[in-house]
């Protein structure tokens, strides 16, 4: 592009070994559908979706199998057609090694789609478009899996200045965004155009690290074809973590989003390039998110990028790349920010940008941790401008309040600090520990506050009930007293006058008449009985009398 984009730097960062060449030599290949898909219901930030299918159901490719639970959630879909063989707890691709609800599908090999039709977002209201994307399961594919429909909101001012597309992909080994930009540049930019229209942004900046010249060239050519002057492709210097949202926004626009604020307050919103492609597929093709590009790299014979259906076992995926015999671990994500998997038999999910195969040789165990010498190296490289050694100190001593005062929650867990630490302290492990402890306390505190409210309400209710009871009792006693007084008054009344006598006689006569009338009426079904029926009734009456006789001693005195 001819417009020169002024670039800004961001603080800190490191230059690790990138190791990206091996997986970019071959084009994207479709991973074959496995014999079994295990699709976790909860694959995004927010509430876990509710299952819509049960064992035995036949599902089509792209059919919704989990419904978003409220607005802060995202739907999940069947990745291919087949039969649901269970909705059950299965091992999750999560460091904890715990299980969660999954829909297990046995593919039928026919790969039959549900009906797909494009969504006319220009005719729909913004809310309807967001609901559509939520139900299409579109989430951020950079790894954070934040529901995209929540971010496609123009913020306070109603419109945005800049839409930033993140194609920096700074983490070593990972190349899924790189190959996506190379091979699918045109649809990617159409997705970007849709997002720009929804956000009413005036320009789109696509930030790409300058170690991906092919991707930059492909996108520039596509932008020329699209003939859209608002789209700019910008090469940013290669330095980890240039792909952090805040770091990229800072590098492209010079805007530094302060602690506790959102980038939308400054007119900027940032999405991953993979998300833009997913939005294109959802809106223009009517396809929900059922697969993604996953890099398989590390200790393998042939690293490559695959289009993988969600629910495919990582073991099956890695097997396509001939893993070396000394393989001893699977990492989801890259070597800096990735998570070690509890087993290789866990499913690929929306957050899986890379399956990194590791061995002792490739990632030797770190030498023993030594005390912090407060050299300050970590603070020099921290892209979030934090003081990692202070946070480490307080996290280690479990003084979480202090760690938070040093803005622990601004830490993006990029691992730069641990990368340079001469004492080889696993700093990020301490931050993760402290963050989850703080979260747990937060949840406990909320529960305690609710319990306090409920307890106080109960006390209040008991008090009110007591008062109401007392009031009722008082009213009853008062009524009783009145009755007694009335009775007394009655007794003291003089004998009836002759007129009253006459009136009473009239009433008595009327009652007599009514009784006589009632006696004449007979129940219909007891007339015209046959002798047998008559006999039966007599027998029953006799039995009843007998029972009454027997029951007498058990009855209460006054009955």
């Amino acid at each position: 592009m001819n417009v020169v984009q002024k670039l800004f730097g961001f603080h800190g960062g490191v230059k690790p070994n990138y190791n990206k060449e091996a997986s970019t030599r071959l084009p994207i290949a479709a991973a074959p559908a496995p014999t079994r898909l295990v699709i976790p219901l909860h694959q995004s930030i927010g509430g876990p979706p509710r299952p819509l299918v049960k064992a035995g159901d036949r599902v089509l490719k792209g059919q919704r199998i989990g419904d978003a639970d409220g607005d802060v959630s995202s739907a999940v879909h069947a990745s291919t057609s087949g039969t649901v063989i269970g909705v059950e707890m299965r091992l999750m691709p999560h460091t904890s090694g715990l299980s969660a609800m999954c829909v297990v599908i046995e593919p039928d090999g026919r790969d039959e789609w549900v009906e797909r039709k494009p969504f006319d977002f220009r005719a729909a209201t913004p809310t309807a478009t967001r609901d559509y994307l939520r139900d299409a399961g579109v989430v951020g594919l950079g790894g954070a899996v934040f529901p995209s429909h929540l971010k496609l909101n123009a913020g306070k001012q109603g419109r945005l200045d800049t839409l930033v597309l993140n194609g920096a992909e700074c983490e070593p080994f990972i190349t899924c965004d790189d190959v996506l930009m190379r091979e699918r540049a045109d649809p990617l930019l159409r997705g970007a155009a849709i997002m720009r229209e929804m956000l009413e942004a005036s320009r789109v900046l696509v930030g790409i690290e300058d170690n991906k010249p092919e991707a930059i060239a492909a996108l520039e050519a596509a932008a020329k074809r699209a003939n859209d002057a608002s789209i700019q492709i910008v090469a940013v210097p290669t330095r980890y973590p240039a792909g952090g949202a805040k770091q990229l926004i800072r590098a492209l626009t010079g805007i530094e989003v302060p602690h506790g604020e959102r980038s939308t307050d400054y007119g900027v919103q940032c999405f991953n390039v993979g998300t833009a492609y997913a939005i294109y597929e959802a809106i223009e093709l009517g396809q929900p998110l059922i697969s993604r590009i996953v890099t398989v790299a590390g200790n393998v014979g042939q690293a490559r990028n695959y289009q993988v259906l969600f629910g495919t076992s990582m073991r099956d995926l890695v097997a396509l790349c001939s893993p070396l015999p000394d393989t001893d671990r699977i990492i989801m994500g890259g070597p800096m920010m990735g998570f070690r998997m509890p087993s290789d038999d866990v499913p690929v999910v929306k957050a899986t940008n890379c399956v990194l195969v590791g061995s002792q040789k490739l990632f030797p165990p770190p030498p023993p941790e030594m005390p912090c010498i407060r050299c300050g190296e970590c603070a020099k490289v921290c892209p979030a401008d934090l003081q990692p050694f202070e946070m480490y100190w307080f996290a280690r001593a479990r003084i979480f309040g202090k760690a938070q005062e040093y803005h622990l929650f601004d830490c993006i867990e990029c691992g730069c600090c641990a990368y340079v630490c001469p004492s080889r302290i696993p700093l990020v492990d301490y931050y993760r520990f402290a963050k989850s402890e703080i979260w747990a306390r937060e949840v406990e505190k909320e529960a305690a506050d609710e319990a306090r409210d409920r307890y106080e309400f109960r006390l209040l209710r008991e008090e009110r009930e007591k008062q109401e009871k007392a009031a009722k009792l008082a009213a009853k006693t008062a009524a009783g007293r009145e009755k007694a007084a009335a009775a007394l008054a009655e007794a003291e009344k003089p004998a009836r006058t002759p007129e009253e006598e006459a009136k009473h006689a009239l009433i008595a006569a009327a009652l007599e008449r009514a009784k006589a009338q009632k006696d004449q009426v007979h129940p219909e079904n007891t007339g015209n009985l046959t002798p047998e029926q008559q006999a039966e009734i007599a027998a029953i009456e006799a039995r009843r009398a007998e029972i009454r006789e027997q029951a007498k001693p058990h009855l209460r005195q006054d009955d």
Partner: protein
Amino acid sequence: MLDALLVMALGAIVLGAALGYAAVRFRVEGDPLVEKIDAILPQTQCGQCGFPGCKPYAQAIAKGEAEINQCPPGGEEGIHKLADLLGREFKPLSAEHGVEKPKAVALIDEQTCIGCTLCIQACPVDAIVGAAKQMHTVIADQCTGCELCLPPCPVNCITMEPIPESVENWKWKYPVVKIVPASKVAA
């Protein structure tokens, strides 16, 4: 002389009135220290501390009538926080009041429940729903795990179930430094 006295007296009266008015007008609801202590207590409302709820215990602590180590659900961490707040010495949890247990919620065996409503009356946070002669059930999200519903149940159908660890509530463990045997290091 008299003038001076009068002026001072008048001043005293005016200021006194102002103070009195301020005391009524700007009265602080409740005792702030009690509120602060109550905010630390876990609100389980179990009564193990010897008081009929967390608030009364907080009041007793504020008055200096109770030790800070009588709340088992709050555990060591709660005692540390109370010690920090009140500037008192930390003491380990007093054994006579109970032991710290992992969090649990009550579960009613719905087959056995006879619908007597006794547990509803015992629950301090109204976490049990049901009507007379109908099966009862515990709203797990609202149950504080106080165990007060266990003793009144005539058919012993309520049990305490520990809250299972899930992907959502799982916590990163404290990073432990692995100790490698010397033989392995050499190898």
